[in-house]
């Protein structure tokens, strides 16, 4: 299954140490990779359908990007396809706009039930995969909730969207969603591992789905609890702000 990575800091940062480690430790994911970040509030995504690690070497472009991308929030995804083709278009992250801003989304999981979903809004993502449809579903829910925006907190709409998603399209979901200021992370089937204040990697907040984390340090495990629908995390400025069950 795919793997996810996120860096969150109060200031601009590069993930020059942790991103290559993420790719090496997740090298069984052989169907593409992608890195997303924001520059002046504009989403920037670089992705590829190539293997992130082949013939004993990291993909050269991935390595270079890891050294160069400099942002308070960086997301990365390495793909092992369970849905859709193997090409750049199906690699993550994806970008859509809602709630008055652009969002970068990366997902791992398996949710075949949502593959037939037809979005009621435009644009639609070119990729034919459960991840693309999941992101469109979330976008559509927020778009329909737009009239409530002035007086409704983001968390309320996101929770509603996730509850509807899980009711209508049951599956395994695990995603990162960012507008460049905060990261929302959700999982109902895998754990996230979080490390803050690393002495071996970057001294920021790091989040990944790679089992055991990216170093031999004390990675905190954040997983869904039985019967609570999933775990929702809010991260900003290098801090875990909120860690909560989806259902009360």
């Amino acid at each position, binding site marked *: 299954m795919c793997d996810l990575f996120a860096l969150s800091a*109060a*200031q601009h940062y590069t993930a020059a140490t942790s991103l290559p480690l993420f790719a090496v430790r997740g090298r069984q994911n052989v169907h593409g990779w992608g890195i997303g970040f924001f520059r*002046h*509030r504009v989403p920037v995504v670089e992705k590829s359908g190539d293997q992130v690690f082949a013939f004993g070497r990291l993909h050269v472009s991935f390595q270079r990007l890891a050294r160069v991308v400099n942002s*308070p929030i960086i997301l990365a995804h390495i793909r092992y396809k369970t849905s859709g083709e193997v090409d750049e278009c199906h690699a993550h992250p994806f970008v859509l706009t809602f*709630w*008055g*801003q652009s969002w970068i989304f990366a997902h791992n999981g398996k949710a075949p039930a949502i593959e037939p979903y037809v979005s009621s809004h435009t644009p639609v993502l070119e990729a034919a995969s459960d991840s693309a449809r999941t992101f469109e579903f979330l976008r559509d829910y927020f778009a329909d909730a737009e009239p409530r925006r*002035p*007086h409704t*907190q*983001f*968390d*309320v709409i996101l929770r509603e969207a996730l509850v509807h998603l899980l009711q209508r399209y049951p599956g395994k979901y695990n995603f990162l969603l960012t*507008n*460049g*200021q*905060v990261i929302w992370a959700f999982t109902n089937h895998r754990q996230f591992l*979080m490390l*803050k*204040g690393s002495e071996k990697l970057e001294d920021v907040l790091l989040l990944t789905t790679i089992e055991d984390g990216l170093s031999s340090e004390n990675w*905190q*495990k*954040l997983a869904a609890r039985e019967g609570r629908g999933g775990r929702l*995390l*809010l991260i*900003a*400025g*290098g*801090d*875990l*702000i*909120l*860690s*909560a069950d989806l259902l009360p």
Partner: protein
Amino acid sequence: MCELFAMSAGQHYTAQDYLPLFADKARANMSGWGIGFFREGQVHIEKSCEGVYEGDMVHDSFQRLARVIGSRIIISHIRCPKAGHQQESLAQPLTDHFLDHHWLFSFKGESESGHGYDSPRPLMRERLLAARVFEFVRDGLEALQGASPEHGLYQGLAAACQQLISRYPGEYAFFLANETVLFAFLNHGEILTYHPPEARGESLVLTTVSGGLTRYPEHWCAYPHEDVRHGQILIISGADLLYLGRI
């Protein structure tokens, strides 16, 4: 009572349209003012023990600062005479560094017993309720984060605020912000939020001034709270109200 103001945006913004309105609406509080903001991760605070209004005019420095200060988060405080002190150094916002961040803190409220908190790391020795509340919240956050790093800052803040209002009953409202996130807590009165239309959703203004700062109170979303035994916390980042939790 004192009044609070905050502006949060996704990128650097000035509060030049709203800080003067805040000063105007809070002009009854003639006992000092302060504006705090962030620049490259550092806190800057400009404050004064003079009235925010001089005659019929907003204080000259306050007006100029309002035009010039640009930051993702700006916090302002206008002090009421009931605060009981006139020193510039005791004007708010207050600041401290903990949990790897510089923080701004701005407070209004009353508590008979709140002065009794004796922090192991006092911000100042003077009898200032805002300082005692800031110390209590900071100490609580640090203790809870140290014990349970897997918990979010919100969980730590909620626990600290719960302890605050149970150990030191009173009326509390405060803004606590680092360079990325703004927390607002209240167990009395109300906090109002407003998306300035000219900012096209890019900034959010908050205040404790009743009715908001513009001519149309109906354009403001009010988050009132009257039961002082409980409270609520708002989490804001950029122009978005992300979460509202009840204690």
